[in-house]
């Protein structure tokens, strides 16, 4: 992209980080960049708390006997791991941190459409997180993050309600972010920035926001019905009260399957930015990549029943949901092919963000392809509720989304902080994460096909070797995740000053100083061309 406006030459002395100081100036800020940083800090906390539970689970699973943790504790730990990682890290991760920070910058806007609402969404996140934290410290909850009834309503004696209230509240945070982004993208684009000149990250955020707005209310309804049954014994899900337990699963997955796309679409958007920037190449098949995001968002609403293939749903419903699940695979495949084709004839610079992007493509491919196993009815019967499923969705959510998130954090870190992170450490961490991830989760595919059920505190002896491999991988992965936190903090003080555009990238966000001033741009940029307009050489003939 180019702007007609001449860029300000001198270093900005005043930017969003130093224009005001003090706790008040942060807690009452309406600057989307500061709200993004508030989210960054909160989500980093959530990630490491959720990660702590994961480590404890993996340590317990080193031996077949349930010896380190009691069964009760183990069940609470996997529940808290799931609840925190899904609702308090993965769903908000890229939209709330990176989206908040760069979306207005990428479209040449001063802020999001509703800055106060944006701050409110962070407070709702914190309030929701407080309820869930209360649930953890007051005894924990043991239903699994899926809260299946009637266990969650009639049987569990743990802190189901505080957790449910926390999720209910944090859902509104998600809805408000989505709403804000949709309006921002519609109304706040810089002059000349037509829909098909938008960076693909913006398209993916738009698709994500649609899901956040349309699906999250169903989660709120579901949680509310769960509360009604648990507290007031209104018979909705418990057959003893005249309810239907499978109804809960329909409602829950009507949100939670689209939510899987909330958790991966923004990551896909980040990858489109990283691949183009570090190949210095326009994206292959812009329109296909953009519309595949929308297609995933739309089809994503129609496949929830594939979580119920053995739950007692009708055979014919299962057939329809299986077919639709295959259709949603196609736009994902289209993205992978287009990213790969974008690398072709590029000029690849292997900086940390590109390493994350390549890792994402590889791991997402495996995650996506194993999804085809689960969509296949006859196969799903055997592998559902086993470690195969665990491996599959971790390849998508951790191999995909967390890689995308870290890639994005590294890519935009110079813009966020005004400093460069240490490149060598960055590459090393990316490599460690890639290796640790595969060692952790690949053995779980085999475990799953062998028949090891998920959520097992103790397991038969013959599964031990693969579990030890998985735990070994998890410890490597843990180190990999700690490294960026350390060196990124280090770089805040000691990193090289980044300059406006350290990557020589084309996005509007790189045309303003790093860190950006309070209002993002000195002069509103005017867009005259396509995104990713990198200089090109003549085609080589012969």
């Amino acid at each position, binding site marked *: 992209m180019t702007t007609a406006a001449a860029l300000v030459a001198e270093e900005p002395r005043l930017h969003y980080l130093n224009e005001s100081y003090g706790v008040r100036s942060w807690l009452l800020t309406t600057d989307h960049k500061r709200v993004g940083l508030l989210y960054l800090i909160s989500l980093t906390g959530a990630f490491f708390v959720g990660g702590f539970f994961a480590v404890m689970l993996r340590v317990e699973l080193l031996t077949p006997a349930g010896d380190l943790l009691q069964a009760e504790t183990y069940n609470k730990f996997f529940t808290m791991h799931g609840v925190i990682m899904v609702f308090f890290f993965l769903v908000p991760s890229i939209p709330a941190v990176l989206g908040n920070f760069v979306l207005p910058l990428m479209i040449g806007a001063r802020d999001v459409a509703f800055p106060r609402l944006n701050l409110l969404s962070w407070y709702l996140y914190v309030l929701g997180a407080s309820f869930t934290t209360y649930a953890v410290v007051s005894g924990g909850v043991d239903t699994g993050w899926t809260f299946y009834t009637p266990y969650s309503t009639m049987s569990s004696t743990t802190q189901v309600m505080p957790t449910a209230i926390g999720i209910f509240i944090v859902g509104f945070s998600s809805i408000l972010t989505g709403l804000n982004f949709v309006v921002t993208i519609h109304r706040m684009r810089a002059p000349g920035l037509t829909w098909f000149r938008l960076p693909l990250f913006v398209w993916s955020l738009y698709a994500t926001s649609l899901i956040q707005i349309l699906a999250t209310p169903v989660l709120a309804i579901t949680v509310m019905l769960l509360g009604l049954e648990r507290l007031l014994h209104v018979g909705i899900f418990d057959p003893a009260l005249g309810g239907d337990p499978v109804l809960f699963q329909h409602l829950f997955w009507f949100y939670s399957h689209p939510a899987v796309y909330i958790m991966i679409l923004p990551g896909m958007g980040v990858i489109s930015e990283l691949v183009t920037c570090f190949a210095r190449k326009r994206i292959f098949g812009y329109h296909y990549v953009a519309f595949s995001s929308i297609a995933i968002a739309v089809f994503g609403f129609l496949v929830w029943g594939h979580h119920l293939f*053995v739950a007692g749903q009708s055979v014919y419903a299962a057939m329809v949901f299986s077919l639709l699940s295959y259709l949603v695979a196609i736009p994902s495949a289209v993205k992978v092919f287009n990213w790969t084709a974008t690398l072709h004839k590029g000029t690849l610079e292997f900086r940390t963000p590109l390493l994350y992007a390549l890792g994402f493509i590889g791991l997402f491919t495996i995650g996506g392809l194993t999804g085809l196993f689960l969509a296949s009815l006859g196969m799903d019967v055997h592998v559902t*509720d086993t470690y195969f499923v665990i491996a599959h969705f971790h390849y998508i959510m951790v191999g995909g989304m967390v890689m995308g998130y870290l890639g994005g954090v590294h890519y935009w870190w110079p813009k966020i902080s005004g400093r460069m992170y240490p490149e060598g450490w960055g590459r090393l961490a990316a490599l460690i994460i890639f290796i640790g991830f595969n060692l952790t989760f690949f053995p779980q595919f085999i475990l799953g096909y062998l028949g090891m059920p998920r959520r097992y505190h103790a397991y038969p002896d013959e599964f031990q070797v693969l579990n030890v491999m998985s735990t070994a991988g998890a410890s490597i992965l843990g180190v990999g995740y700690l490294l960026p936190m350390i060196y990124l903090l280090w770089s805040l003080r000691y990193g090289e000053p980044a300059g406006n555009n350290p990557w020589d990238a084309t996005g509007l966000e790189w045309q303003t100083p790093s860190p950006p001033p309070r209002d993002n741009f000195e002069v509103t940029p005017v867009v005259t061309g396509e995104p990713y307009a990198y200089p090109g050489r003549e085609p080589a003939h012969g």
Partner: protein
Amino acid sequence: MPLFPEQASTLAPRVDALLFFLLGVSTFFTLLIAGCIVVFAIRYRRRPGNEMAEQVEGSDRLEIAWSVIPLLLCLVMYAWGAQLYFAAATPPPEALEVYSVGKQWMWKFQHLSGPREINELHVPVGLPVKVLMTSQDVIHSLFVPAFRVKQDVLPGRYTQLWFQATRPGTYHLFCAEYCGTLHSGMIGQVVAMEPADFQRWLAGGTGATPAVAGEKLFTDLGCITCHRGDAQARCPELAGLFGRTVSLTTGRTLTADEGYIRESILDPGAKIVAGYQNIMPTYQGLVSEEGVLELIAYIKSLQTTEAKGPS
């Protein structure tokens, strides 16, 4: 260390064949993508002489190719999987029946010829076995990896699965749906035996058959006072009911299966047979899930006597 599960049912090799097809396709695409990335990474790395990318437009032809080819492959996976699922969902009519009740945290099994088992299920090799299941508390799921079968077990209704064991042996039986504290302790084994051994095992069992126990319940609960089976009875006749088409007061018809009989015992007002009044009290809380299964076995046995005559 096993890397592949045992194949011990007629379904297992069929599921594994689908697995190998899926693995083949996935491996091909994974290697294709990984191969392209590695080759491009080396060939197009930034170096003197390659500072600038060659900017290309997309290609509609390629986009169509890499949408349509995967779609066709997906349709094959879909059809193959759906066909297996249908087979797994349709027990052969001659299948041997076993009743099962899941509860926190054990599996109870009841053979129609008498023996009861807990966390252990003896079955013959070479004959189809159908397990009719319900839960008396939360959702469980019966999973036998060596047979490649799994089915959730729900409170308030019946679900079923079937298999035909092919090799004698002892196989894991797991609960696959999280059901509370000792979920991972809700495990047991399936013992597949040669038919002759199985007959011997059955004969060694004690206890009344569920049909006999059901008959006793039928009398004890007073069912017999209304379901007398004569023309003046205030309630429908039960002999020959199972599997018959029933007309309801609403005008609908249904086939009397286990689920219908269960519902009629626990929630009698839900579906009234045409020509009768809604006068039956509920037996919810008065009869356990096992009791209901025994009553069903008894009603089914009435069917056998009527249809085949004394044998």
